[in-house]
Every structure is written in C-alpha cells, then in structure tokens.
C-alpha cells in the first residue's frame, strides 16, 4: 500500500515536472510595474502629458474622450491648453492624424489603438501593465534592425524607441542559455550566448558551450551612460503605464469606492434577513 502511494506521488511529481517544463522555456523576464501610481494624480497627469506628447504621434485612443481626463484632476482649460494639439474639442476622442494605411507602409504594421491596451495585453502569464512597463524600458540600440532599435520584451519590434532622448544611451547585455544541436555532427549540448550591444548598436557575440545540461533561460542587463537619467525615465515609464491603465478601465476607482458600500449594505441586509428567517422558522418542528 505504502509502495503504491509512493509510486503515485512520484508519478504525480513527474507530471508536475512535465507541466513545468512546458511552461518554462526561455520566457522573457517581465518586471513589475509599481502599481501605487495608478491612484496618484501627479503620476497620472505626467503620464497624460507624455502620452499626448510622445505616444500620440502614432497611437490613437479612439474610445477615450479628452474630457475623461477630468477624472484625473485636470480641468477643461488645462486639457485644451496643455494636451490637445490642433483643433480638437474636449469632447472629442483622443484621435491622431496618421492614417492606418500609411502607418502600415511606414512601420510594417499599423500601430494599435491604445484605448484598452493594458487589458488586451494581459494574459494568464503576466499583467498587461507589467508587460508594457517592461516593453517601454526594454529598448536597446541594434544596428541590424530597420529602425536601429530592438526590444527585449518584443524582439524585432517595429516601433522605434520613442523615449530615447529621455532615457539616454545604454549598453545592453543579453544572456541566453539554450539547447543547441549541431546539424552536421548531431552533437547536442547547451550553449550560453552573451551578446553585448554598445551604445551605438554594434553587437559583440560570445558563445560558450556548457558542460552540464542547464535550463533554458534568458536574462538581460542594461548599463546606462547616465544612471540618474535612466532612473528618472523609469518613473516616467511607470507614469505612462498608469495613464494607460486608467484609460483602459476609467471606472475602476469609482467602482471600488461604490463596491465597498454595496457590500456593507448587503452584509447588513443579510443579518436582518437571517434574523427574520429565524423568527419564522422557530415554529417549524
């Protein structure tokens, strides 16, 4: 009996390990977006400013109206004077002038509308906010791509690094460990590839063969020329993500505020209903 149980446990363990192996692979390490910014008006307004000045060169948010931003502490005059370019009205959606057809020619793919982007990019593996935070901070120079930029979260991305002047130059080191099979000799083994991209995007690649089998993995480090500027940009990126999260689901804060009262009411109602029920049922023998 004991033996059977042990076997069963081993089998279950193997199953679990198999599941883990499927899930692992060389996934991109997604960083956590500092979510406390979602409720900070300063962050949200900075995010709105960066969004209007940078992102809206190419990305629309057609499902959002400008005056929705009153919810993050801006008034109509501020929205009109500081955020809207051109002759849009405050009741208009966050439209852009670039046509999707032209964009497709220029970038290979029309830049997506960002109205609900943090939800659309969420999956069972990571949150959309974390993904975009990693993406915005994951650019490095790479001379081999058409735009001269590449991204650790989205390899060979069509979008160039729009915030490059704010982030400052960085050197990137990408370390990837993977199984390698030599097709001529049939020799299989594990290889660790280290690629260093200097600030001008020139790559230096070194490959070392590992003696022992290893897990497939991917890691990266960035070395900014000006660490303080780079840190400042991390805060900006977090604010842009906060703004994107806000426009994705603008009812969230209202919802949670009302929700507490609804639950309090229902709890009180449940107590009354419970007592009423007892009064009726005490006669049932």
């Amino acid at each position, binding site marked *: 009996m004991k033996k059977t149980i042990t076997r069963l446990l081993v089998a279950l363990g193997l*199953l679990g390990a*198999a*599941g883990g192996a*499927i899930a692992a692979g060389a996934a991109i390490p997604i960083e956590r977006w500092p979510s406390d910014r979602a409720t900070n008006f300063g962050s949200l307004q900075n995010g709105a400013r960066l969004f209007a000045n940078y992102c809206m060169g190419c990305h629309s948010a*057609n*499902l*959002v*109206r400008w005056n*929705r931003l009153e919810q993050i502490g801006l008034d109509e005059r501020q929205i009109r004077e500081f955020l809207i370019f051109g002759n849009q009205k405050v009741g208009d959606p966050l439209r852009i002038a670039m046509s999707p057809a032209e964009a497709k020619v220029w970038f290979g793919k029309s830049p997506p509308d960002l*109205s*609900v982007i943090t*939800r*659309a*990019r*969420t*999956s*069972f593996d990571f949150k*959309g906010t974390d993904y975009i935070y990693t993406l915005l901070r994951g650019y490095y120079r790479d001379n081999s791509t058409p735009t001269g930029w590449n991204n650790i979260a989205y390899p060979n991305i069509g979008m160039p690094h729009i915030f490059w002047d704010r982030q400052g130059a960085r050197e990137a080191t990408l370390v990837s460990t993977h199984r390698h099979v030599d097709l001529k000799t049939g020799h299989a083994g594990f290889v660790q590839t280290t690629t260093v991209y200097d600030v001008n995007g020139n790559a230096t690649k070194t490959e070392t063969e590992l003696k022992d089998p290893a897990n497939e993995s991917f890691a990266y480090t960035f070395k900014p020329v000006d660490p303080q500027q780079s840190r400042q940009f991390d805060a900006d990126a977090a604010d842009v993500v906060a703004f994107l999260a806000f426009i*994705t689901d*603008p*009812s969230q804060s209202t*919802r*949670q505020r*009302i*929700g507490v009262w*609804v*639950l309090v009411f*229902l*709890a009180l*109602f*449940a107590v009354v*209903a*419970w007592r*009423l*029920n*007892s009064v*009726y*049922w*005490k006669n*049932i*023998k």
Partner: protein
Amino acid sequence: MAEYKTPYAGVAGWFDQRMPTAMAEYRKHLSEYYAPKNFNIWYIFGGLAITVLAIQIITGIFLVMNYKPDAALAFASVEYIMRDVPGGWFIRYMHSTGASFFFIVVYLHMFRGLMYGSYRAPRELVWIFGCLIFLCLMGEAFFGYLLPWGQMSYWGAQVIVNLFGAIPLIGPDLAIFIRGDYVIGDATLNRFFAFHVIAIPLVLIGLVAAHVLALHDVGSNNPDGVEIKKKLDANGRPVDGIPFHPYYTVHDIFWLAIFLMIFFFVVFFAPEMGGYFLEWNNFIPADSLATPSHIAPVWYFTPFYSILRATTEQFMVVLAVGTIALSALLLLTVRNPIVRGGIAVGTLVLLLGYFTLDAKFWGVVLMGASVMIFLGLPWLDQSPAKSMRYRPTWHFWLLIAWVVAFVVLGYFGTQPPSQAGQYISMIGTVIYFAFFALMPWWSRMGSFKPVPDRVTFKPH
C-alpha cells in the same frame, strides 16, 4: 354558473372578485404550495437561477439601448457603454458577470439533482424541461459572446460554427447557411444578435415557466428523496410540507443576500475574474486576418470543448472498444431478439463510422452527446433509492469522480493544447461517458440503506 363570492376583504377582495385567477395562482404556487421542510443549502440554486435570469434580462434591456449590432461599430459601442453611458459600466459588468454566475448556479442546481435523484419519477418532465433550459442557456451564452466583437468572440464563433462543417455531405453548406457569409461577418453578428435578444430568451422564459409549473404539479423532491405527499394530515396537506411562502421566501432571501455579496464582489472588484469571466483577448477588436495563437471558449463551455479536443484519430480506438464493451453488456442484459438485433446492427454501423468518417465529426457528436445525455438520466438511473443518503457510499464517490472529471476537463479546455493535457482529457472523457453509459448496471449494485417513511428534520 353560480356567482363567485370572494372570501377576501378590502383591496384583495375587490381584486379577487374581478379576477379570481390571480389569488388562486398565488395560493397554488406560493402560500399553499407545500414544500418539504428539510431542504438544505443545495435547494437555494433554483431561486438564484431565476434571480440571475432577471438580472440578465433587465441589464440586457439597458445594454440593447446603447449597443450597435454592426461589425464596424459593435466593439466601440460596448466600450462606449462602459465609458460614456452613465452607469453603463455597472450594467455591462453585471451582464457579463451574470453570464458566468448563471452557469455556476445552474451547474450547482444540476449537481443537487444528481445527488438527490430529483430527476426520478414522477419528476422526469421537470428534469427534461431543465435540460432544455440548460441547452437554451448554452445557446444564449454562445450567441451573446459574439456581440462584443473582440478577437475571442470572433474566433470562438468561427470555431464553433465550423464544427457544423464536420457533418458529412451537408456540413460545409450548413456552416455557410448559419454564418450567412463565408467567414463570421456582419450578417452573422446581426442574426446572432436577433437570437440573443429575442428568439432564445422567449423560449427560455417559456421553458422556465414549464419547469416551475411541472414542479409544482408533482411537488419538490428533498434531500431524503421521500415523497411527502404520501403522508397527509386531516386537511389533506403533507405533514412534512410547509407553505413555500413565507417559510422558503424568507429562507431564500437570506441566501440571496449572501449570493449577491459574492456576485457584487466580482462586479465591483474583479469583473474580469482573472481572465475567466472576461477573456483578455476579447479586448482586442475582431480581426479576420489575425488568428489568436490560442482560442479557448469561456470557462463554462470548456468541459465540453475538452471532450471535442480529446476525440482524435487515436481516441477512435478507445471509443470503438467502449462501444463494443457497452453493446456486449447490452446484449447480455436484453432478452428481446429484435432489440438485440438492433443493438448488434447499431454497433456495427457505429464501428464502421468511427473509422470511415473524420474524427472531428465524432468529436462534434461526442460533444453534443455529452450535453444531451443528461436527458436520459431518469431512465439510466435504476437505483432503488433516490437520494445518495440511502445509496451505497461508493455511488456517491462515483458521482464525485464524475464531477472531478468534469472539472479537470474544464481546466484543460482553458489551456493551450499539450500532450499531457490531451491524455488527461481522454481519460476524463472516458470517465464522463462511462458514468452515464454504465449507470443502468452500477446504480442497482451495492447495499442500500432503508429509506425512512418521513423526512429527517432537525428544528432550527
């Protein structure tokens, strides 16, 4: 005809004098409908299902006021409801959460039926109407899911409509007929909208009425599976029955409050429910040129979807062995030579079909069968006792094994295809069908406990 003299005074009397039907129906269905006094928590889900139906209809009316059933406008109109319509987010989240809760409540309601034998005579019709309600509910959920016009709406509908294409000969034409186009398009959206907002709800409400009327004619079952109508008092009322109103109305109101707390917690704090109630991919507008890497139906369909996916070329061998075993068992049990001949011919036809027609077709057949098989329960179950309380304990564990198979199938239905998931789904499918197919034999076996004359009840 003698003139009717109302026994009521005041407003009720005025009303009753002019329309005696109203008070008569009130008495029949509420104040003088005698329900067994030993209901437990499993008996709250019928009432909750009606509540969720009401929530869906009322929120649905408000959604239709602002929704645009047009492939070019649908996605944006849903976001418009959630952003620019006052309180629109509340209405929409209630409706989307309500859809999932409808299935939670109905699955629990059905489990209650399985546990206490509520489908057994004389309640076969109650059960059949219930199964038809479940079918309608699935249709309603499927048609409604296309309306937000996101990627999952679009590709989910594409996958399901394509299933009809697996039917031999007429399949491909039938799929085009259903879509009204060669791919899911504006025509499909409009007809699904029509089905979702009027056709299916009308049938659904009719069936709910039939379900409740049939129940009130035969009376409710209870956790003991004892017929309370067998023990009547001097006034002809069941001794173990109590008027539904006020006893069960106050009782259900309490549980309704608890249910609403859970329901509104989801609505206000987690409307996406981790991607299970509102799928993340569905926030990307439908794009006929970009197929998502992983298409999964919403959680409530995934057990059946898993059965579909488990039915591969490989599985046909398992299915053939299962069919042969079942027909051998039937041939050993049945005496009538004509029936025996029919079973033999039927088995041969099935076996021939398994290896000549596409496995996909049999996947569709099994998926359909996995839902329709519930209709046969009143006749499949041959146990001398209705309630699990008086059946051998292993009967209960068999039911739990089936529930586990159902949940595991559901889990793997949400996941991308994998080798391990494939085998586990195959095992789950075998357990799912074996439970029902072998029920006429296993439900008679084992030692049954004596069923009491009256219900067991402990005063509160």
